[in-house]
């Protein structure tokens, strides 16, 4: 189950695909769509939440990929290149919709975490089968949407899309250290959110003692 703790990228690009794309091979274009559209759609959906926005980002990503494949220099993988286009499209859409959007170049929000109170609730005892339901899924999604964009994009790429630290750094044009710092803040914030939720959940279901620290 713990697949997120490995950094491997599940899709490896077929050898020769880039060359076929460059020659305008329509079968290669459809292969690219089938290889990456699901993951890029999920990335956009987690960033934007609105399915129509996610679909717009998906279409724009492939239109740009087809248009600019001649300029793909192979310094990063095709997968990373596509993620970069999709992430930039999603961030641009967020900027258009939210004037208060924070640039990725600015320091990540969250410095206050050092002094924030910690939820000390051990909810690890809840069996997995009790958590596989739509209510918990909604809570997980809600918690991700609570993250500032600077942290959310790193969490989505690293822990939901399983990109490595290096790949995430390449997609976002950040240092690996910045990716790790933001991932750490994102995970800690999510832990706080979920601990509050599961404390109430355990109380309702009369699990053992819970303590708020």
């Amino acid at each position, binding site marked *: *189950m*713990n*697949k*997120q*703790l490995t950094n491997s990228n599940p899709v490896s690009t077929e050898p020769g695909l880039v060359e076929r794309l460059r020659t305008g091979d*329509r079968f290669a*274009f*459809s292969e690219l*769509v089938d290889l990456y*559209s*699901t993951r890029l*759609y*999920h990335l956009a959906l987690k960033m934007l939440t609105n*399915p129509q926005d996610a*679909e717009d980002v*998906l*279409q724009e990503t*492939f*239109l740009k990929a*087809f248009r600019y494949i001649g300029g793909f220099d192979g310094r990063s993988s095709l997968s990373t290149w596509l993620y970069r286009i999709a992430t930039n499209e999603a961030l641009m859409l967020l900027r258009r919709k939210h004037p208060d959007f924070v640039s990725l170049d600015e320091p990540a929000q969250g410095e206050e*975490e*050092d*002094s924030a109170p*910690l939820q*000390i*609730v*051990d*909810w*690890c005892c809840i069996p*997995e089968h009790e*958590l*596989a339901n739509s209510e*918990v*899924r909604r809570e*997980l999604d809600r918690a991700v949407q609570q993250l500032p964009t600077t942290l959310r994009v790193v969490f989505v790429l690293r*822990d*939901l899309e399983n990109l490595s630290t290096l790949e995430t750094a390449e997609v976002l044009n950040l240092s690996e250290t910045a990716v*790790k*710092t933001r*991932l*750490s803040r994102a*995970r*800690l914030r*999510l*832990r706080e959110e*979920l*601990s509050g939720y599961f404390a109430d959940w355990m109380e309702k279901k009369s699990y053992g003692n819970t303590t708020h*620290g």
Partner: protein
Amino acid sequence: MEIQHTGNCHHLLGALSDYLDGELESQVCAELETHLAGCEKCRVVVDTLRRTVSLYQVVEPDEALPVGVRERLLHSLQLDEFIK
């Protein structure tokens, strides 16, 4: 980084994510584990942090692309012959 048992463990938080990913340097990792052995609160934080990360993998389904989305995508790319 020196890890001390001070009763206020907030200064450890920044190391926990790297710890879960196995990316802490070995000396710091050993110090953290020594601390965890004697600090119940930090153990709960580490365990729930690990569960938080794993929950997103376990509970979040790997859903297929909705059929309509794929069709409209292929149409927008003028690849209609691959719609099936």
